[in-house]
């Protein structure tokens, strides 16, 4: 005889059949519930893999921020003391001889000619054109030459540069580099490097004599000299520059170098430093002048920066691959562990697509949670770096910040990686034969 079930109330029978099955792709209610529950069930595994993803994301974000900061710092330091583009006259070339008659072998040996300082032809007309270019932030003409600085018995060889102070300031930000005195360049005044001042034993307000030797074509060497008063000492960040730099007004330099009304080069600052490479050849073509970008004059720096970028990309890629493999391996194990549950779900009417999405969603959730945690971790690492690692002067070595855009991009990539990592396990789960899965 059947034993009675303890006091069961009568079961109401639904009169109308339940709503027919309908495909709703928008609400992943079932998939979300099951995915979250599966993840919560495998607590330790889930936690481990989220921490793993977080560590990966933190490394990628931290390295990216660090390298970006380092490169920005290097560029600022390098480009802070030099022009982005330098325009100068073409080198003198020896005109080729008339073409020899055919059948004649010609052996040519030319020696580069020794050149005196030469001016940019028509630089006064070129300057407004450069000023008008939208890419150009500042243009500054310069007269450069070699000479000697004399003070009593002391004499030092110098690099003489005649500049328009306001224009030159916009190229190298000279006023911020003044360590003594006030940047001012009226007639008869000069700004000199800090180390040159100590070599000569002079201070702001003292006078020095500058002398240059010029060789006019067909004439004997002439010595020009002028006495200037020092208005400021500057620290250009490089010792050699600090020992040799003497800045004087354009006119003073023109007469000292023997190029009245001339300029030996024009320096340009661009709004976007990376445009220099494309802009320089176009300018050279257009005006038939020698135009050099900072990338050309700092080729080794550029290749170092590129090497850094390449290795950063490599590190990022490797870390992301590790993250993908980590998520994938955990999900593969999870699929094996959950064979029976998958079989039951399939028997109850879960479609292959639903099972597939349950596991893809798990990958996405793990990726997203890990990313969020990883970005937080990176922020902490960056904070520690900027507060704990300091230079000898007690200031942070350089500023590194994690741009929100970069953080979002890294998090998005990691989440997509999570989904990608889940593809193979999800497919194997969806393909499980329900009858077999239940029997096991």
């Amino acid at each position, binding site marked *: 005889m059947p*034993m009675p079930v303890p006091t069961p109330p009568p079961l109401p029978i639904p009169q109308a*059949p339940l709503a027919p099955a309908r495909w*709703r792709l928008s609400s992943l*209610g079932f998939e979300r519930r099951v995915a979250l529950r599966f993840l919560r069930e495998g607590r330790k595994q889930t936690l481990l893999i989220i921490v793993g993803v977080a560590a990966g994301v933190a490394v990628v974000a931290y390295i990216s921020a660090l390298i970006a900061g380092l490169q920005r710092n290097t560029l600022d330091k390098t480009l802070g003391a030099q022009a982005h583009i330098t325009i100068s006259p073409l080198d003198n070339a020896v005109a080729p001889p008339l073409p020899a008659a055919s059948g004649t072998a010609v052996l040519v040996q030319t020696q580069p000619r020794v050149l005196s300082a030469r001016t940019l032809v028509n630089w006064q007309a070129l300057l407004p054109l450069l000023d008008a270019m939208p890419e150009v932030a500042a243009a500054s003409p310069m007269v450069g030459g070699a000479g000697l600085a004399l003070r009593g018995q002391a004499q030092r060889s110098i690099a003489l540069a005649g500049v328009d102070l306001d224009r030159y300031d916009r190229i190298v930000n000279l006023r911020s580099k003044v360590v003594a005195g006030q940047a001012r360049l009226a007639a008869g005044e000069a700004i000199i490097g800090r180390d040159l001042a100590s070599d000569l034993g002079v201070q702001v307000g003292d006078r020095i004599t500058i002398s240059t030797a010029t060789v006019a074509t067909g004439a004997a060497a002439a010595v020009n000299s002028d006495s200037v008063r020092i208005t400021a000492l500057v620290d250009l960040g490089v010792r050699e520059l600090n020992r040799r730099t003497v800045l004087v007004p354009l006119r003073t330099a023109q007469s000292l170098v023997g190029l009245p009304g001339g300029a030996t080069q024009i320096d340009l600052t661009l709004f976007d430093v990376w445009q220099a490479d494309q802009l320089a050849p176009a300018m050279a073509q257009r005006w038939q002048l020698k135009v050099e970008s900072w990338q050309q004059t700092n080729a080794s720096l550029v290749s170092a920066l590129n090497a850094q970028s390449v290795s950063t990309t490599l590190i990022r890629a490797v870390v992301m691959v590790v993250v993908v493999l980590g998520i994938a391996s955990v999900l593969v194990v999870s699929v094996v562990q959950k064979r029976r549950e998958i079989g039951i779900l399939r028997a*109850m009417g879960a479609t292959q697509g639903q099972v597939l999405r349950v596991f893809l969603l798990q990958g996405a959730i793990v990726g997203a949670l890990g990313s969020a945690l990883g970005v937080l971790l990176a922020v902490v690492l960056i904070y520690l770096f900027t507060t704990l690692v300091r230079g000898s002067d007690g200031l942070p070595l350089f500023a590194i910040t994690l741009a929100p855009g970069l953080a979002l991009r890294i998090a998005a990539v990691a989440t997509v990686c999570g989904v990608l990592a889940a593809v193979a396990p999800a497919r194997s789960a969806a393909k499980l*034969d329900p009858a077999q899965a239940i029997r096991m």
Partner: protein
Amino acid sequence: MDLTASDLPTPGAAALLLQLRDIRKSYNLGLPNEAEVLHGIDLELAAGEFVALIGPSGSGKSTLLNIIGLLERPTAGSYRLGGQEVVGLNDADTTRLRGRALGFVFQFHHLLPAFTALENVTLPALMREGHVSDAQRKRAKDVLAAVGLQQALDKRPGELSGGMQQRVAIARALVLSPPLVLADEPTGNLDTASSQEVFALMRRMHAELRTSFLIVTHDPRLAGQCDRTVELVDGRVAGDRGR
């Protein structure tokens, strides 16, 4: 193809529920160790029947139940469920039909361990609709109350006894009122008292809902309490008593 619930006979009507014609099933098809386990099964089930499927181990009971449950495909033959030929349907249609027309009770691993009793019973609705409506939740609670588990709604399967777990599984199989419930050794894992209790519950649900039951069992005493007994021997129907 699009099959709606109205195509299926409603529980209680004495219509033909399913019809198997010359169903054959071979494993390892085309391999040297190919083996036919079902040799042409003919079987009809009317709506509202309570049938035991018995037979010795290896007679093909479970395979036949899996074919009827749309979990396996026959190698040959015809299977009409609610007047509709289901051999040759694609996976998506088969799955949809399975979810709507059939309830399952298994011997082991019946429930999802991560979900509470109530959640296990609302899963079929969640699977179909993407969410659980208040009406569906109430229906699930009613069914759980009907199987005597109103006190255990929020318990996980691990916190329930074997008999209670099986009652949750029966509630889950019945919650969407399918015309047919398939049970594979539903009491095979239970002590005598619990298995009697679970069996009685299925009989009562059958009486109240007129849902058809097809129960695979080893237990001759339980088989004896069914209205009809189909015996399978070596992949053939060897007996059909009580029609």
